[in-house]
């Protein structure tokens, strides 16, 4: 188990290093000079050159790369070119929006998607099944920014129940902060809930054809009881896999939703930073997202290995 854990950690570190290298290299290839962007269209070349030196952009690429890695190992993500403030602080400030937003969206999609999927599977072939599946298909097809716009029009412009966007920091007024996240998390959750409903239905339909359900029926359970006691739990496995994958999509979806609802989250931060060529900020934010995803995968692997010894034997002979 120790050897297994060690191997997984080395793999984790190597993945991060390669990811960092790729991010650094790719962003370095982008046309556009951050110093020129900062100073704008009428700046003199001399001013731009001065600013380049101040920003440390004149050093060779390998020096900047290792300087960046070394800094991060010490917890220093550098100073944003455009905002002249520490990158770590800027990212930290935005997590208070993006994390709750993603989590709310995840909860809504589970609470709405799974029961609908179960309902559709139970009524397979009936009108309700068709209605749920057509709705889910539409939910997947509708872009979440458009759905967000519709929500705003109804709940903010016409009814004036909820704010059309914007965000009040949690420490200022938690109630207002929460209200600000209701519509965006609904917009974000719609496609996810639709996907979950479809996956849940398919998984459950598959399960009902299994031998153990037949056995359970033979032992005298009704179809409903058999599905509920034995089916749902087994059907949840593929759903959980999808759910894990969806988290990454959720984070990506926040970029668009944060723009529609003018929320100061990570997505919007990266979006703006790319257009401003604030490369150090883009790198920092991206690497944090990658760390989050790979660390989750590492933890899942370790958890699986603890639960199921066959896994660690297979990968650590």
């Amino acid at each position, binding site marked *: 188990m120790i050897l297994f854990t060690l191997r997984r950690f080395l793999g984790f570190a190597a993945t991060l290093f390669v990811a960092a290298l790729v991010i650094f290299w790719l962003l370095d290839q982008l046309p*556009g000079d951050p110093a*020129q962007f900062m100073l*704008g269209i009428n700046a003199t070349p001399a001013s731009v050159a001065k600013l380049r030196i101040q920003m440390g952009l004149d050093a060779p690429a390998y020096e900047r790369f290792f300087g960046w890695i070394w800094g991060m190992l010490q917890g220093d993500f550098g100073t944003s070119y455009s*905002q002249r403030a520490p990158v770590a602080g800027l990212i930290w400030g935005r997590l208070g929006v993006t994390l709750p937003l993603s989590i709310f969206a995840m909860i809504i999609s589970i609470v709405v998607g799974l029961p609908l999927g179960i309902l559709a599977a139970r009524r397979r072939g009936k009108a309700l099944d068709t209605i749920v599946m057509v709705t889910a298909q539409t939910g997947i097809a509708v872009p979440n920014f458009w759905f967000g716009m519709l929500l705003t029009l109804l709940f903010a412009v016409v009814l004036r129940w909820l704010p059309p966007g914007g965000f009040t920091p949690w420490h200022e007024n938690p109630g207002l902060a929460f209200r600000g996240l209701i519509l965006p998390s609904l917009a974000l959750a719609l496609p996810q809930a639709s996907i979950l409903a479809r996956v849940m239905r398919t998984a459950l339909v598959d399960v009902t054809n299994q031998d153990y359900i037949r056995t359970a029926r033979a032992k005298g359970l009704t179809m409903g009881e058999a599905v509920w006691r034995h089916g749902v739990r087994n059907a949840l496995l593929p759903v959980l896999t999808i759910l894990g994958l969806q988290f990454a999509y959720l984070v990506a979806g926040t970029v668009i939703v944060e723009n529609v609802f*003018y929320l100061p989250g990570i997505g919007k931060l990266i979006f703006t930073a790319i257009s401003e060529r604030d490369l150090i900020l883009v790198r920092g934010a991206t690497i944090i997202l990658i760390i989050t995803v790979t660390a989750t995968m590492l933890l899942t692997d370790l958890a699986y290995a603890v639960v199921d010894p066959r896994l660690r034997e297979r990968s650590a002979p």
Partner: protein
Amino acid sequence: MNKTTKAFGLALALTTAMAGAAMAQPTEVRIGVALEPPILDPTAGAAEAIDIVVYQNIFEGLVRVDQNGEVEPSLAKEWTISDDQLTYTFKLNEGVTFHDGTSFDADDVKFTFDRIVAEDSANAHKEFYTPITSVTVIDPLTVEFKLDEVIGRFLFDLARGDAVIVAPESADNNANEPIGTGPFAFVQWDKGSRVILEAYQPYWGTPVHLTKATYVFISDTATMTNALLAGDIDGVNNFAPEALAVFENNPQFHVLVGTTEGETILATNNKKPPFDNLKVRQAMAHALNRQAIIDGATYGYGTPIGAPFAPHNPYYVDLTATYPFDPEAAKALLAEAGYPDGFSATLKLPPVAYARLSGQIIASQFAAVGIKLELINVEFAQWLEDVYTNKDYDLSIISHVEPFDIGNYANPDYYFNYDNPTFQALIRTLNGTTDEAKRKELAIEAQTILAKDAVNGYLFELAQTGVWNAKLTGMWQNSPIEGLVLRDIRWTE
């Protein structure tokens, strides 16, 4: 009373309380702005977004520009100019303090300008101030500037955001915590979301009407429209023309149409064949139908221009008739220039609606005379590198929003690649002249040369299209300088 009635009563009371609270805030304003400034220090960045928030609100200069583009006193209450035009002596206002409580005096003025022209200065417009050879403190309320050449628009340059007065105690932190002498003090910046300003009570000048102003950053047009309709923001200084129809007939709003300093041009690489040929440039000028471009690209908002000068400027002269829209004349000139079948070129377009739309319209207008354009969409950072810095382009479309920037044409290294010694000499004379009548004459001559030379395709002056709550008054209709001045804004009821 049963539960339902109680709940209903409570809800009613709450709603009434909330409505009451909303009505009791007639001294605050929330303004939607499309671009968030990267920093709030106007002396360290050129982004217009910075000046929109801070210019004349948080920071003030020795002088300022008013709504009509005239220079008027600000921190300096009066000044004298020596006969040789090389010495300016400013008398400063008394009792002025910075928002951190430190006092303002001549030492701060000296510090500000020494900092701008310093070796390691990153001021985006250092070149405006390099002719200053010395700034001398005569007494705490008198300061003297010496110049090594006559600069006709020196006072205007002092009124720019680049020359606002900062204090040695706070200058280094202005990027994120701006401290100035203006009527509004910085309170809070929720990055990615909003900037909050509050009226500064010990303000030295005329008190302002608002107690609080919040700038809300909303980049998407449809989102901004909803935010206005939902009452989340009270106004937008300059809004996308395509969305104005929603507000024009809505009595809750008024649309304020004015002029800007933004001359929109078909930027041309004058050294690159075939654009080094005057006849080719003249042919292109004849092929442009300005009104069609304005109607299509800015929904009719915008004024046709024939030279790079703002129509509201006192020196402006209408040169749109220099090369009127005439496709036949364009074809004839192309044939004379040796391109009877036209030619192909690229048109690089930055990510602003007026540029992308104008590009499509111009491509079809040019196709009619045989010039085939390939449209290339670029991001702004890439535009700056390709077009502006490396001059790697044929044609581009962009609005030049700097006030009085005709001097760029006298710089042969500017991205237009336009090198005309006669014009350069003329601009030198203009810069060295302070006599108004003479300056006007020279400025008109300069515009005429550029129009005749068809250096760029001159398209239109961008309009300023504000959308405001109908109960708000005091907003600037025009923007003769980059900024959104809050001083006169107030609620009428």
